[in-house]
């Protein structure tokens, strides 16, 4: 079966900025493809090209068997899009927002209302159906936006950073909804800045940076390569940092980073922490701090690409560029 989403060598420039520099990706029908990358990496641009909102300068993309450039109308009849900035009309009620989409898609008045009520119920917005969307919380707005993208029962769904800015509870709720959709066979392309999110939802992940794909694989592949967790150790005696670094390197089989007195090392498996603790105890090193935490995107990038994803100073300007240009 051909992939539901396939992009080959996508290039998109905005003036001097290259948002996509030959990105290729592919998602099999009924799977979730996670597109992971920092702000300004080109995730939104890629989504917009695939959702027919933006024509690429080079390369081609086929969505649901139709070329996004030559057959955009057919692609649009198969897809749903939920953007980073919820595209609901805040002056309209939840019901009206969904009825609007249903009517635009050619549904009759009664069918549109029924579809709206059904979706609002599914998304826990039944009680708020008659309220203007501007009175909704961030999580409710995002759910309404997702519901709006589902009105036409899309076979392929694009979710552009659907949980950015959501609190953990709302995020978990949204994850549950995405899982239910994929259970129904919908193909999902999800962009995210969070490794955890990609890990939770995606069957396959492409990591992109500066408009190009820097790594692809299943979440397990990438975790195995990058380390899903990081073990952080700070010896009580700063003079023992070198010893800690050497032992961490030996046991983890990876190069630790040292920031002031804290040594961080990718933790590939659960056995690393007890092993490190035992060995340090044997050689008489006392730890003031010992933490096992999830790897940040930056650390994944470092592990996968050998360089940092984005430095702090450029993060803001990059995200501005992303918003303004993309």
């Amino acid at each position, binding site marked *: 079966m051909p992939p539901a989403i396939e992009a080959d060598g996508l290039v998109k420039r905005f003036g001097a900025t290259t948002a996509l520099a030959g990105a290729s990706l592919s998602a099999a029908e009924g799977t979730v493809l996670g597109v992971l990358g920092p702000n300004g990496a080109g995730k939104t641009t890629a989504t917009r090209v695939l959702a027919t909102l933006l024509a690429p300068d080079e390369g081609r993309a086929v969505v649901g068997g139709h070329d996004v450039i030559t057959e955009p*109308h*057919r692609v649009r*009849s198969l897809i749903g899009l939920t953007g980073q900035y*919820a595209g609901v009309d805040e002056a309209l009620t939840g019901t009206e927002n969904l009825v609007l989409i249903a009517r635009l898609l050619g*549904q009759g008045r009664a069918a549109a209302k029924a579809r709206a009520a059904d979706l609002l119920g599914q998304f826990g917005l039944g009680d708020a159906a008659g309220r203007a969307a501007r009175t909704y919380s961030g999580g409710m707005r995002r759910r309404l936006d997702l519901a709006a993208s589902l009105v036409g*029962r899309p076979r392929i769904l694009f979710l552009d950073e659907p949980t950015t800015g959501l609190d953990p509870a709302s995020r978990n709720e949204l994850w549950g909804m995405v899982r239910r959709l994929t259970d129904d*066979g*919908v193909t999902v392309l999800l962009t995210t800045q969070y490794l955890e999110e990609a890990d939770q939802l995606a069957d396959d992940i492409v990591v992109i940076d500066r408009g190009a794909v820097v790594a692809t694989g299943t979440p397990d592949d990438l975790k195995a390569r990058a380390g899903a967790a990081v073990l952080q150790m700070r010896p009580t005696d700063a003079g023992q940092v070198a010893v800690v670094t050497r032992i961490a390197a030996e046991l983890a089989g990876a190069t630790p980073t040292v920031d002031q007195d804290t040594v961080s090392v990718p933790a590939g498996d659960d056995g690393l922490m007890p092993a490190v603790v035992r060995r340090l105890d044997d050689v008489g090193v006392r730890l003031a701090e010992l933490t096992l935490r999830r790897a940040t995107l930056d650390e994944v990038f470092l592990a996968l690409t050998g360089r940092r994803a984005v430095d702090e100073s450029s993060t803001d300007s990059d995200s501005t560029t992303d918003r303004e240009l993309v």
Partner: protein
Amino acid sequence: MTLDRTVAGPPATDLPAVPAPRSRRATPAQWASQSLTMAWRSLVQIKHNPSELLDLSIQPIMFVLLFTFVFGGAIGGSTDAYLQFSLGGLIAQNALFLTVYTATGLATDLQKGTFDRFRSLPIARSAPLSGRIMGDVVRQLWSLVVLLAVGVALGFRITTSPLAVLAAFGLLVAFTVAFSWTSVLLGVLARDPEKVQIYGFTVLFPLTFASNAFAPTQTMPDWLQAWVSINPVTRLADALRGLLVGGPVAANAVATLLWGVAFAAVFGPLAVWALRTRV
């Protein structure tokens, strides 16, 4: 189990409401239906925000009252005589001011991502714009009726026929729809709905006041008279006066429509180009 449904192909039988993947493009009938749905969307907002209706009414009422009672005697000799002269001008000015709504709404849609949502749907490309303009025409008509009603309450007398009044409505709508293209361009370029108002009124105040909408041309300096005589607001105001209280119509109406064609011809393509570039 559920996976089979999608693997088997597009919408299964339990999904009757949704048409199968559509043909290449929207038909004219679909375009009309989609535009009307968009117009509904633009107008249903008033239901939740009734104060908008007040906005649409207060400004014209205020202008009629201020101009009639503050300037009326000085400019027109008496408030009654002035109202007969100025109401056509007030209608023209108010109509142009209202086109800013189109820009504000569009800028909001672009900023909030609503426009992207519409563009991702298999609908006519122009439906979001045409629907918005249709909705704004209804706002225009509402405001026009309020203006006329207030005018009549203050002593304005329509001395022509109902047909002429209808023609006035038609001319006003035709011109403002054409003029809306400037507003579409503004909405796309402004990026921020808050700025739309500032930019809009920066252009519209001089455009509408440097006309004969509120004062006869004779006392103005020559250079200004030269502009005022060709200003579309002057021609529109004169045409409306002709249609409401009598006087020459044809030349002014033709000039107004030609201006409309010119606005649409220049700003239409510019606005479409800006929109394509922007999104």
